[in-house]
């Protein structure tokens, strides 16, 4: 059975994530303990609320180091919602105490330009061919709730020996298009909440857990 740590650095409602991962067969521990987070087969990084507050919380719990160490060893990490946004360079979200993102991927998080914001509800996603995460649920809707998103993907397309591991980017629309998910070797992330996306979300989490 795959062991997953849900990184407990003080970000909102994480109970559903724990239960959803258990539901799809993982053995789940909710903790911010560094050793446990490094040893787990998979690390789930949640995140709700303000980008900068999440970054501050992550830093206080040594999250950046834990994530870096895991990725350098090819160990899977899944970031969700703001837990995905913090993987980019930074955010335009206003803050009294601005924090830089983790910079795992280039790009900034910016406010959605739509008639109604937050983007709240179930949206379709545009999944690239060969996605492992979305296998079997490519045509389903997923539950989003956010006002900010990554709206351009600027990572250079890898060539040569690296072409085979090019990141798979899934898009969605609200006002304009934005990044809904990324699969990039051991690092994966979704802007939507798979743990709140009913059967489709559970299937996606199961795909991730089975890959660990």
């Amino acid at each position, binding site marked *: 059975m795959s062991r997953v740590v849900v990184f407990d650095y003080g970000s*909102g*409602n994480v*109970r*559903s994530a724990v*239960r*959803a991962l258990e*539901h799809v067969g993982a053995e789940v521990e909710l903790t911010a303990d560094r050793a446990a987070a490094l040893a787990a087969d998979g690390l789930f990084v949640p995140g*709700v*609320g*303000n980008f900068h507050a999440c970054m501050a919380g992550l830093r206080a719990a040594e999250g950046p180091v834990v994530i870096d160490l895991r990725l350098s060893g090819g160990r899977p990490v899944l970031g969700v919602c703001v837990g995905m946004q913090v993987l980019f360079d930074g955010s335009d979200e206003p803050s009294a105490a601005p924090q830089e993102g983790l910079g795992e991927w280039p790009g900034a998080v910016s406010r959605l330009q739509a*008639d*109604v*914001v*937050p*983007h*709240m*509800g*179930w*949206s*379709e996603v*545009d999944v690239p061919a060969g996605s492992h995460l979305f296998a079997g649920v490519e045509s389903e*809707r997923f*539950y*989003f*709730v*956010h*006002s900010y998103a990554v709206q351009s993907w600027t990572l250079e397309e890898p060539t040569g020996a690296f072409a085979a591991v090019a990141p798979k980017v899934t898009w*969605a*629309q*609200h006002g304009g298009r934005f990044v809904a998910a990324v699969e990039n070797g051991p690092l994966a992330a979704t802007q939507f*909440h798979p*743990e*709140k*996306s*009913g*059967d489709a*979300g*559970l299937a996606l989490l199961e795909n991730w857990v089975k890959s660990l």
Partner: protein
Amino acid sequence: MNVATRVIPCLDVDGGRVVKGVNFADLRDAGDPVQLARAYGEQGADELTFLDVTASSGNRETTYDIVRRTAEQVFIPLTVGGGVRTVDDVDRLLRAGADKVGINTAAIARPELISEVADRFGSQVLVLSADVHRRRDASGAPTSEFEVTTHGGRQGAGLDAIEWCARAADLGAGEILLNSMDADGTKDGFDLELIELVRREVRIPLIASGGAGRVDHFAPAVRAGADAVLAASVFHFGELTIGEVKDALREGGIPVR
């Protein structure tokens, strides 16, 4: 690629039990909110709302327990409202497993509560719940002026409903649950004028509530500007299913999940 219109059943919970009768086949205990929540999830509900109508604060623990058990079994968003007065109340509900919290009277008494909650947990957790009625003219006939009410619609709060919704959005509310007290219980359809007026002034998601009676009531509410539609008794008594409402919306050209 538009976001789907959400169809949301609302359950009134008192001391751990669903009140206002529920008439569902295949349920061992129709008063158990967790079983009902699961049944609605299976029917295709896009979200669930629990309205805690428990009068005594001593019974609140029961509500936390229900939220906890529901969040462990039903993997769709859960909003909990009723009796939420402080940032700590919000914190406890979120920790129990709620995704969003509805605030009503406490925000009217002290609007800063909206900003405090939004600053601490993010706008997305805060649903401003507005119980609204039409002001009456001298002859007692309803006008096109809308007022916020408290105490289940029995008392006017002296606030213009449209201005209040706009102000709540400015203060950081993530969504508005707009409940027409005039339409509530009539089953004559949503108050479309109210929805249109609020839609014109606010750019956050709007949940229409009050008055649903037939499947063809829902699409007009969406055309008037609602992003989501909420109903209680028509679902509980099995008069309408979530699926029937979604079929009707789909036939009206409105995207649903």
